């Protein structure tokens, strides 16, 4: 038997197993999943206030920041978010890496507006939503490049300037991290970051990143 025959025999098997669950049952379950996401969103919003307190503490105690983690800081005006080695939140951490890339480490899908503001201040045209819905003002960059990825594997390839990095020990454990190189984004493109579910012990978390057309309404001015 040559390989083509073997592959044909293997493929013949797939039609012999039938998924018997009715679509109505799937959709009913989908309603429950969606409601669970909404509950997570409410809880996350409530936690954002606590996160803001942590930011204040971090800014007030610069000595606690890791030295050298933000090499571009000296070239930026005082008060610019990039002057902070890392903006530490309970939900996520944004750190500028050598070479201008920016790493976002997720612990919780909370304070999307704060993350969006921080990333934009660091030069990333981006729209961030954690509600399970995407910004309706965002349009795919092009039919061929609008893609979404999730931090499922040990690593994924570049996506027009964005690439995921994985936990080196276990790709399935948090925190998830996303590295963005703004200079590598295609001209006129921005990023859309959205999530489904909540990172952490829950297995429902999914991080979606796609290329979108940069615009004031979607990715900011």
């Amino acid at each position: 038997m040559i390989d083509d025959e073997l592959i044909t025999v293997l493929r013949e098997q797939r039609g012999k197993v039938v998924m018997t669950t009715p679509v109505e049952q799937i959709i009913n379950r989908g309603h429950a999943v969606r409601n669970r996401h909404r509950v997570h969103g409410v809880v996350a919003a409530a936690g954002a206030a606590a996160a803001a307190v942590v930011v204040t503490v971090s800014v007030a105690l610069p000595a606690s920041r890791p030295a050298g983690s933000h090499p571009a800081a000296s070239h930026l005006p005082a008060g610019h978010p990039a002057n902070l080695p890392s903006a530490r939140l309970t939900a996520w951490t944004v750190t500028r890496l050598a070479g201008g890339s920016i790493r976002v480490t997720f612990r919780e899908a909370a304070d999307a507006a704060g993350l969006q503001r921080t990333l934009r201040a660091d030069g990333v045209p981006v729209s961030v939503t954690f509600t399970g819905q995407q910004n309706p003002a965002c349009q795919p960059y092009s039919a061929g490049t609008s893609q979404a990825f999730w931090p499922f594997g040990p690593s994924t390839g570049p996506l027009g300037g964005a690439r995921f990095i994985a936990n080196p020990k276990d790709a399935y454990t948090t925190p998830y991290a996303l590295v963005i190189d703004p200079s590598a984004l295609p001209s006129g493109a921005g990023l859309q970051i959205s999530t489904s579910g909540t990172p952490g012990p829950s297995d429902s978390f999914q991080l979606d990143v796609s290329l979108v057309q940069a615009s004031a309404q979607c990715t900011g001015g």
Partner: protein
Amino acid sequence: MDMGSPSLDFAEFYRGAKDDCLFAVLVSVGDQDTAQDLVAEAFARAWASWSSVSRHPAPAAWVVRTALNAGVSRWRRRRREVPVPDLALVADWPAAGETADGSVDPRIMAALLRLPARQRQVVALRLFLDLDTECTARVLGIAPGTVQAHLGRAIAALRGDLVPTRQEESQS
């Protein structure tokens, strides 16, 4: 996307992809009931996030990947309670007469289950979902060359496992 009637497109997608997704997950987890539960949960999550999943270049791959991740999480929650057999050591799957519809060749399934987990995932995505190498690599988070290497090793192992049996059958 019109969120007012997402179930129409979703229902069409479900009808067209459900069996292939089930088989792809079955190859990875080895148990039909478990596979059906995981795929149903993954499709439910796909429905809940249909506005973004429908834009994924390979929504069926999204479902399979989500199902496999749910399986990993479920296994981690339960492993302290129930010993889990190493699928790579499965000798026969399942015994004759134990399949839900009695039509899957148990020797082929047993041979698939003897493959290492990553090879099974590559086979599931490349051969049973018909994804190309690039898309398979993205879904699994590995390099395209690694996908090809895993597929080559898997085919070689399956050839060694299945071809002698089938040749003997044809000679008898």
